[in-house]
């Protein structure tokens, strides 16, 4: 184990895979000498050279579309899209090309590609640089969707994503980039589709992902002081989803709160709520609660953004409503 930040952990995971497999290349806007808009790729150009780490024009469509073509022909590209908010620009390449090529071709194509992109609010970046759009990608069969919440998971999941033979949308949270934690050294793979209990508890299950795991852990700590034992379950990957782990936890606590930073309507929390209603209705002793952002664009002013974001207090209130 070694201590590193979430950003360093993503970089370390990419480094391990690039050392392991010469077909892995990394490209996107300003990922080379500049080191990425958030510094995640810093130093990789020096280690791997300009044939494997390179800058692109501001052309999201061609970045993702070319990754599709490159993957079909034998590379294992990691394409970086500077903000998840920009995925609208290249959505056809995600929706109609990457996700569907294998199926449309009757299973005769492999697309080992990763699109890495940062999400999330909390920095007054306003409505076009702060969103959490993971639900879009979960609604497209053929994609896998990964959202790590800790430095160790960030490393283990990027390595798993790079080794996967399917298109993976790897969404890293801007607020987590500086989070420090223990990370295994050397190659480290966290399998896609395995949830992780980040804190064990017996009275209520809080399912959360990405930055919201950290908020849920803080809430659980406060709840413990008043005698409520909250279990925090992080699915880590939304597709594939570890349904068993969610049902198992709800089976233990009989209460469920789902926390996500994305807006409420059509959010992935609704899918998890539906899962528990369909397959675990008898496990519930209380209605399912969701703590999410409201159905508005993301505001700029810090006071407005704070009102917008799910918080430790909002999670605690949702839990209190169940008791």
């Amino acid at each position, binding site marked *: 184990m070694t201590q590193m930040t979430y950003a360093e952990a993503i970089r370390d995971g990419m480094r391990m895979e690039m050392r392991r497999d010469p*077909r892995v*290349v990394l490209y996107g806007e300003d990922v080379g000498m500049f080191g990425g808009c958030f510094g995640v790729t810093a130093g990789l150009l020096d280690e791997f050279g300009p*044939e*494997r780490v390179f800058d*692109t*024009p501001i*052309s999201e*469509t*061609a970045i*993702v*579309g*070319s*990754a*599709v*073509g*490159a*993957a*079909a*022909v*034998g*590379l294992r*590209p990691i394409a970086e899209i500077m903000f998840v908010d920009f995925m609208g620009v290249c959505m*056809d*390449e995600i929706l*109609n*090309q990457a996700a569907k*090529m*294998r*199926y*449309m*071709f*009757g*299973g*005769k*194509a*492999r*697309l080992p590609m990763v699109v890495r992109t940062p999400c999330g609010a909390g920095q007054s970046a306003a409505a076009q640089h702060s969103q959490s759009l993971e639900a879009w990608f979960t609604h497209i*069969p*053929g994609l*896998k969707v990964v959202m790590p919440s800790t430095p160790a998971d960030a490393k283990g999941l990027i390595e798993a994503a790079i080794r996967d*033979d*399917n298109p993976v949308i790897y969404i890293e949270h801007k607020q987590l980039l500086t989070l420090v934690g223990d990370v295994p050294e050397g190659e480290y793979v966290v399998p896609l589709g395995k949830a992780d209990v980040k804190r064990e508890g017996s009275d209520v299950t809080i399912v959360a992902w990405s930055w919201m795991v950290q908020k849920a852990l803080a809430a659980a700590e406060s709840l413990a002081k008043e005698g409520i034992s909250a279990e925090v379950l992080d699915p880590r990957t939304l597709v594939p989803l570890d349904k068993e782990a969610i049902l198992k936890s709800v089976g233990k606590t009989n209460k469920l709160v789902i926390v996500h930073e994305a807006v409420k309507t059509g959010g992935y929390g609704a899918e998890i709520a539906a899962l528990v209603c369909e397959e675990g209705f008898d496990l519930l002793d209380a209605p399912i609660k969701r703590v999410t952002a409201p159905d508005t664009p993301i505001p700029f002013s810090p006071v407005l953004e704070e009102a917008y974001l799910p918080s430790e207090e909002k999670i605690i209130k949702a839990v209190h409503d169940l008791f």
Partner: protein
Amino acid sequence: MKLSKEQLLGFYKTMTTIRAFELKAAELFAAGKLPGFVHLYAGEEAVATGVCANLEQKDYITSTHRGHGHLIAKGGKIDLMMAELFGRSTGYCKGKGGSMHIADVDLGILGANGIVGAGQPIATGAALACKLLKNGAVVVCFFGDGASNRGTFHESLNMASIWKLPVVFVAENNMWGISNYQKNHMNVADIADRAAAYGIPGVAVDGNDVIAVYEAAAEAVKRARSGDGPSLIECKTWRHRGHFEGDPAIYKDPKEQEAWLKKDPIPRLADKIIELKYATRAELDKIEADAQAEIESAVKFAEASPLPAPEDVFTDVYAE
């Protein structure tokens, strides 16, 4: 450039096979035997044939919704294509793709595509892979005049040009973006002029003259293979039929249609071959009859093939 007898007869075989495939598909569609949408390439055969004659099996192409001709010219198997049109489990895509999604990655066919312009970035990425993997292959991207108006065109040609990628962009200008005439959807007469914006060669050729297409593509493929980067070739041609089968094409001027039918690339090539004394009319008729027989045999194969099992809907979503 002097083309051999074998080359020209090969072109004739490919072009008549494409034409026979397309007219048979039209007949089958009209008879209600083919589900879905069908977009036919009749009239544009010289483009795919002249371009793909410069390619090797290791080379790649991206195709379009009007893709049958590209696939046949790149070596696609006729019976598997026909079975796919019928939605059979023996088809190229096991009945999961249909006419608009036929692919054969082993033959370098990276797919027809239902999204106009989507092949341009895919071809760019394939060329990036060819360059980085140093496999010596080149990529040809087929697309139409309509697709040259997509943002994908600009982003892809720009990216391919800065990285000197081994890709040839082939604009098949059949003068119609569905029902929209070229002069109504772009302010330039020659799509080839757009190459100047990327600092790459751009050339417009008679797309109904397979020899002219072959020669232009030969130069562009050579340039790509030698590491000098991409080119844009515009092939001016004409779609004989509507945008899709069932489109009566009321937007076409009948006189213009008639004039273009007189420039049909297949009789033009036949005349050239006879003029060069490479074959007699009877020998060409034999090639055409053989092509027709191959198509009939593919229809028999398709009709005799099993349908997919309903549970097949669930497979092939993810690679294991």
